[in-house]
């Protein structure tokens, strides 16, 4: 099983061809834009530059979205029209209702807890001597993919029979305190909560970094003015810090909410959605690609899409408001 660069040559060749094609297309675009007629120049210049991106977006995003929506009205094979059957199934099938309940649990708990953890941490380490070290510690999980995080935490929750040595951190601690080792990922509803912990572990760092920057952006004079006005630490937080970082807090909360709605990797790697831990994205994958139920999978995807849209709208509104305030 030796690795020979010669075997990889065709791939490298394709790489070079790809890069050359890219350079060629860009060159051609620039040439055309440069030499083109002067009439309505700005209009078609914009069209030329936007064209490739719009094309790729249409092919890669809009078309699949429309096709998924279309497929959600067909049966498993994607050939027979089935009307709203898939949506009826979505909201009546007991297993799917559990999936919806789990997703709700995720969306309610994960963003709030991750943001709160990040905020508390950011305030605690703010202007302390070890700020940068402390911050990188919490931020590090951000560098790990959800799959990696899932595998790490599966070890944390690992179970061995009582007589064996516990290799899982959590059971080790439980045993050390004289408890019985638990099959953490099997007992619901605790197992879903334990999965949520993984997402919080990953996302709290993100929340902390963004909120920390927002806290540092509060003018020091305002904090000083509040101290002279007589505010104690809690009043300072409630009346100055929190209102000042509120727009940022909303952005963080919504960003993590969207992440949470789409959560798939953590569930997939840790339980595969078994033991009543599945969520919409995982169920969509199972239905569409494992059970061959294209219609039901598509219906789940459309539902997920519908859930994300309002969040994105709020997100964009907040962004605009923040920008206007700064202006």
């Amino acid at each position, binding site marked *: 099983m030796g690795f020979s660069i010669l075997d990889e040559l065709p791939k490298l060749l394709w790489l070079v061809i790809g890069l050359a094609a890219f350079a060629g297309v860009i060159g051609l675009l620039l040439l055309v834009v440069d030499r083109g007629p002067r009439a309505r120049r700005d209009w078609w210049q914009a069209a030329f530059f936007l064209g490739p991106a719009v094309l790729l977006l249409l092919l890669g995003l809009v078309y699949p979205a429309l096709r998924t929506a279309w497929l959600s009205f067909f049966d498993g094979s994607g050939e027979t029209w089935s009307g709203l059957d898939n949506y009826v199934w979505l909201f009546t099938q007991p297993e799917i209702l559990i999936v919806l309940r789990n997703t709700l649990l995720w969306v309610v708990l994960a963003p709030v807890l991750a943001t709160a953890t990040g905020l508390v941490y950011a305030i605690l380490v703010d202007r302390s001597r070890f700020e940068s070290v402390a911050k990188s510690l919490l931020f590090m999980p951000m560098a790990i993919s959800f799959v990696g995080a899932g595998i790490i935490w599966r070890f944390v929750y690992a179970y061995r029979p009582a007589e064996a040595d516990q290799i899982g951190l959590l059971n080790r601690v439980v045993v050390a305190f004289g408890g019985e080792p638990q099959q953490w990922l099997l007992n619901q509803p605790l197992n879903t909560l334990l999965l949520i912990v993984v997402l919080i572990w990953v996302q709290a760092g993100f929340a902390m970094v963004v909120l920390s920057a927002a806290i540092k952006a509060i003018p020091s*004079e*305002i904090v*000083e003015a509040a101290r*002279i*006005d007589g*505010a*104690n630490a809690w009043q300072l937080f409630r009346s100055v810090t929190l*209102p000042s970082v509120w727009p940022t807090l909303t952005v963080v909360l919504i960003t993590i909410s969207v992440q949470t709605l789409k959560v798939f990797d953590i569930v997939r790697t840790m339980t595969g959605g078994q033991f009543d831990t599945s969520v919409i994205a995982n169920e969509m994958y199972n239905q569409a690609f494992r059970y061959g139920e294209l219609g039901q999978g598509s219906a789940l995807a459309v539902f997920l899409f519908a859930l994300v849209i309002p969040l994105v709208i709020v997100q964009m509104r907040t962004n605009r408001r923040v920008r206007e305030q700064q202006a």
Partner: protein
Amino acid sequence: MAKIVLENVDKVYSGGVKAVDNLNLEIADGEFMVLVGPSGCGKSTALRMIAGLEEISDGTLSIGDKVVNDLPPKNRDIAMVFQNYALYPHMTVEQNLAFGLKLRKTPKPEIERRVKEAAAMLGLEPYLKRKPAALSGGQRQRVAMGRAIVREPQAFLMDEPLSNLDAKLRVQMRASLNQLHERLGVTTVYVTHDQIEAMTLGDRVAVLRDGRLQQVDTPKNLFDHPVNLFVAGFIGSPAMNFVTAALTENGTGATLKFADHTLPVPAETLEERPALRDYFGREIVLGIRPSDFDDAEMAAHNSGTMEVVADVTEELGTEINVIFTVDAPPLEHEDAAALAADAAGDGDDEDGVGAGLPLARDKSVFTARVNPRSVVRPGQPITLAVDTRQLHYFDKVSGLAIGHPANVAAKA
């Protein structure tokens, strides 16, 4: 209300930088005290120590007979107005004004009464429901003042509160500040780098430099009797003219010689400052205020004259500034260098002439303020009268004013 006393107060930062060095200052009850000096002189640090925002490295600070070194800001019963106003952006004007009172659990009707009163005093009533972002700079400034007023504190601390306003508004607010102080009579410590503000507002003005107090006195005394070169050059606009001159005795009195000019020293000056006699036959630094010049043809005092050629004339309507060179090397003293650096870095000093004339590198640049009806024109010769009774004399080495009571006392 209370007096504020600083005794041997030091501020040493962790890097070993001494921002305030052995500061002694007694601010009387109800007094308006201005701390003034170039940037980095320690005036803001001193104010922040009074506020409790900076720790005091050494010495004692008392407000109203109580040592407050270790009291947190909120327990010092002071209110502060910041340069950039530091209004709470998410609160309305009304909430901004009431915040401090609310935190102190003042009864609601009392809060309402005080907020209403302050708003009326400052003309803020139409804006009570607005947020700071919807206010102009001047309005924000008034809210910041109002926030201090409603607290009815022992003392107001103000850190360059007018420096973010445009020139015209600054002059207006300066006047209102004066009225406000007349009316409330609260002890006020006011920090500024603008000597005009210092002179117009202060009951007394403390001039600081490099963390050390140079002189504290009434504006008039600072102007008429500066204790050293630095104070002399810092106070007054346009700045005092300096030149190294030879002091010689001649029969009845004494004369000063520099370049091709000779000025008599009046007998009464020698009587007032006997120490000047020690300098006979030596060089001293001579200081002449621009306002102690005039066009000889219309001068009231004509005890000495200088024949010069006007390089530049600035007609201000109420007066004409005549800028001319004197064929003597510019003053080389650390105080003069510090002043020049300050003037160069200080963009908003409207009258900062002289410092930046590169053409006159090996000559002294002088400014004379003459009668507006003078016919002086650039490039034309003019005879200037000098009011020699108002001349200032400084030791060439120490920069101290010769015969100034404070310096005489220090020597004795």
